[in-house]
């Protein structure tokens, strides 16, 4: 369990001794289990089957945040998990409540975000009868959770929740779910839930095998063109500092994956920023030409690798991961090191016989940085460029500002043109690529880190999908700045249609979207409209100054596309810098 959770637990323990009343129902033991595990917030929506649990929550110190839609509850819990490192908790009732949670659960599963979902279920005697608001929630969610539990007894329902909570946090983090039939939560029990503990069949490796570490260290030391590829697992394992120490001591260039953004400071000389479909040209060239890759906490997603045949084809791969099933799943690992990323980095640090002799390679990487800078055109007469908005925002904020996004072009611009230097400041939907993630994620992120500034870059399409979440941000008076990079289109789709479907823009243009500044005002948030370069500074300043949620409806150049680009399944080294290159590759 993370530090914060255990501190809370101790605090509560002292209170417990004096005043905690014994549990009398299954629902109370569910809530007690969450309290014991250190849950601070629950994101949810009420409903018949989950009502007994809500009733028990009435007497708890855990803060419940009522969401406008269950999808928002699971995304908010997910983002809370990313930012705090501890499982976020979401609640939903049976049937439609539970199915609405599923997108967020699947999202958390793909990105290994710690999260626990509790769903109401019809009473046990009706299960299987197609009762009102019944769905097979365990069956639906099993493929997208670490484990889904069906609570079968009032005496043990608290233990189920404790175990699910611990499991969400242990090893490779991820979502778990407990389905709670109403009779089980209503049922009487005086059994206190056990302390959070993972199931006995779940083993988490800690340190990697010493001999394997030694071998890997030799190979890395002998490399002429070494790189480190840092994935989201580095952040999850709180290994960012260990990574910085390792990379700077042995002077190895660092590339991150997109979920790994923030694991290594992008302003560092050794940073090549991130690789993949829309990653930097220099990162993709380094990936292609490396002869030894130390890959840490990455699952080699196809948006990163492009076609596997052209992925780091000369490289010995040293793969550090806590999940043995990730080893050689997509990219064969010559040297698998199974263990916690932070521990293994320490082991490797000590095992390195010498620093790789790679002066020339580092110079080459710097040359690429100069040859393929991240840039865009900003002639005065052109409509506003989204990249400029992101870049300016990044310039005026602190390093620990948290950036959330929806999914699409705006997500790519945010990741490309914001300068990330701290872990847990980049909150986005990677593996599942869920439009609508941004609005509720920003809510979860803000509650997890109330002292940090939170900005959400969203697309008009994504924003519309979960805009109702604004009502929650207003009610909770959350100081979030939403920036809708408005191109009146689902821009990423339109970009592909222009590039790969002869410009046949089927169902991708949205000239009928509402005025988001007015919409924001209708919700009780502050609304701003931004159209010109001259107003960027003052509009962003005004939105940031506003104490509460604000929305900037930024009308950007609808013709702007995302580059560099590696087409799906393509060769990372052949990234396109513009439309013309696409025809060449």
């Amino acid at each position, binding site marked *: 369990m993370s530090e914060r959770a255990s501190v809370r637990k101790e605090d509560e323990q002292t209170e417990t001794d004096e005043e905690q009343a014994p549990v009398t129902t299954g629902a109370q033991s569910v809530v007690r289990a969450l309290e014991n595990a250190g849950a601070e917030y629950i994101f949810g929506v009420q409903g018949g089957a989950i009502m007994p649990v809500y009733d028990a929550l009435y007497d708890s110190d855990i803060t419940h945040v009522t969401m406008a839609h269950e999808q928002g509850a699971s995304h908010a819990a997910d983002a809370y998990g990313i930012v705090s490192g501890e499982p976020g908790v979401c609640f939903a009732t049976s049937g439609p409540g539970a199915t609405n949670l599923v997108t967020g659960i699947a999202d958390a599963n793909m990105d290994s975000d710690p999260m626990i979902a509790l769903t109401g279920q019809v009473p046990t005697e009706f299960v299987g009868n197609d009762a009102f608001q019944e769905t097979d929630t*365990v*069956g639906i969610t*099993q*493929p997208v959770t*670490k*484990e889904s539990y*069906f609570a079968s007894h009032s005496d043990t329902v608290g233990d189920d929740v404790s175990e699910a909570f611990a*499991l969400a946090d242990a090893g490779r983090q991820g979502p778990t779910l407990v389905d709670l039939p109403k009779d089980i939560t209503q049922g009487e029990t005086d059994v206190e839930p056990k302390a959070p503990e993972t*199931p*006995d*069949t*779940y083993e988490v490796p800690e340190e990697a095998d010493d001999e394997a570490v030694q071998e890997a260290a030799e190979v890395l030391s002998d490399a002429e063109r070494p790189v480190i590829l840092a994935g989201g697992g580095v952040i999850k394992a709180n290994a960012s500092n260990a990574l910085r120490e390792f990379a700077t001591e042995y002077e190895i260039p660092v590339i991150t994956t997109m979920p790994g953004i923030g694991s290594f400071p992008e302003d560092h000389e050794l940073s090549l920023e991130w690789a993949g479909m829309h990653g930097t*040209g220099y990162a993709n*060239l380094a990936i*292609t*030409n490396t002869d030894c890759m130390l890959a840490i906490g990455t699952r*080699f997603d196809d948006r990163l690798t492009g076609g*596997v*045949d*052209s*992925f780091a*084809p*000369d*490289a010995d791969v040293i793969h550090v991961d806590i*999940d*043995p*099933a990730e*080893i*050689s*799943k*997509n*990219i*064969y690992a*010559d040297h698998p090191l199974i263990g916690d990323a932070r521990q293994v980095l320490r082991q490797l640090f000590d095992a390195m016989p010498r620093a790789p002799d790679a002066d020339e390679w580092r110079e*080459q990487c710097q040359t*690429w940085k*100069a*040859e*393929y*800078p991240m840039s865009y055109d900003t002639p005065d007469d052109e409509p506003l460029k989204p990249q400029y908005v992101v870049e300016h925002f990044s310039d005026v904020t602190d390093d620990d500002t948290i950036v959330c996004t929806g999914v699409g072009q705006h997500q790519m611009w945010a990741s490309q043109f914001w300068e990330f230097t701290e872990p847990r400041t980049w909150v986005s939907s990677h593996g599942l690529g869920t439009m609508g993630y941004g609005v509720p994620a920003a809510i979860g992120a803000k509650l997890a880190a109330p002292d940090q500034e939170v900005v959400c870059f969203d697309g008009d399409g994504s924003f519309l999908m979960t805009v109702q979440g604004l009502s929650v941000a207003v009610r909770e008076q959350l100081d979030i700045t939403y920036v809708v990079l408005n191109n009146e289109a689902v821009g990423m789709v339109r970009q592909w249609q222009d590039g790969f479907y002869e410009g046949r823009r089927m169902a991708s243009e949205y000239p009928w979207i509402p005025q988001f500044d007015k919409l924001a005002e209708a919700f009780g948030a502050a609304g701003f409209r931004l159209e010109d370069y001259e107003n960027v500074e003052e509009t962003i300043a005004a939105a940031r100054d506003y104490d509460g949620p604000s929305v900037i409806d930024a009308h950007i150049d609808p013709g702007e596309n995302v580059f560099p680009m590696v087409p799906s399944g393509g060769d990372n*080294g*052949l*990234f*396109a*810098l513009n439309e013309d*290159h696409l025809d*060449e*590759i």
Partner: protein
Amino acid sequence: MPGPAPHDRMRPEGRRNSQGIRVDPEAEATHEPRQAVLSALVKHRPGVLAEVSGLFSRRQFNIESLTVGPTSDDSIARMTILIEEPRPGIEQAKKQLQKLVPVVSVMELEPEALRRELALIKVGGEKPDDVNAVAEMYDGQAVDASTDSVTVEITGSKQKIDAAVEAFEQFDVQEIVRTGAAALERGPKTLEKHD
């Protein structure tokens, strides 16, 4: 100052195969599919079969057969799963299986492991003696007979049962049920149980 265009950039010679393995230009290693017998101990509780079979279908592992049954420990069941995959696929299937929470342990059995399948074959009852004779050839026996039908039980390897089924075809086969393989390692080796 955009750098060189796509095909003018520095790039290495090598490549990887579809499984992400670096291709040694001399050895051009490819991995042919082979049959593997995975044996798993799992917590004996509702839903575990769905969990395991769901894993195999969503990961696109090609299951040949899957059998489940109790063990001497009431809380543990044993599954025998035959899959046909290239080596990396078999490794991946094992690891994914091990990852499921109710799975206690997983092992791939040696090729020489004991493998048995059971078949019940119901054929027309016109020539009971001939049916019996064929059954004996395959160490089987008639376990039920009526005026219209005879049902024969056969145990053995998959090949033996395939052969028997073929031999019975002469008698107007009415119904067949086969269990899929159950398998155990030869010698003293056993699957680890958790404490």
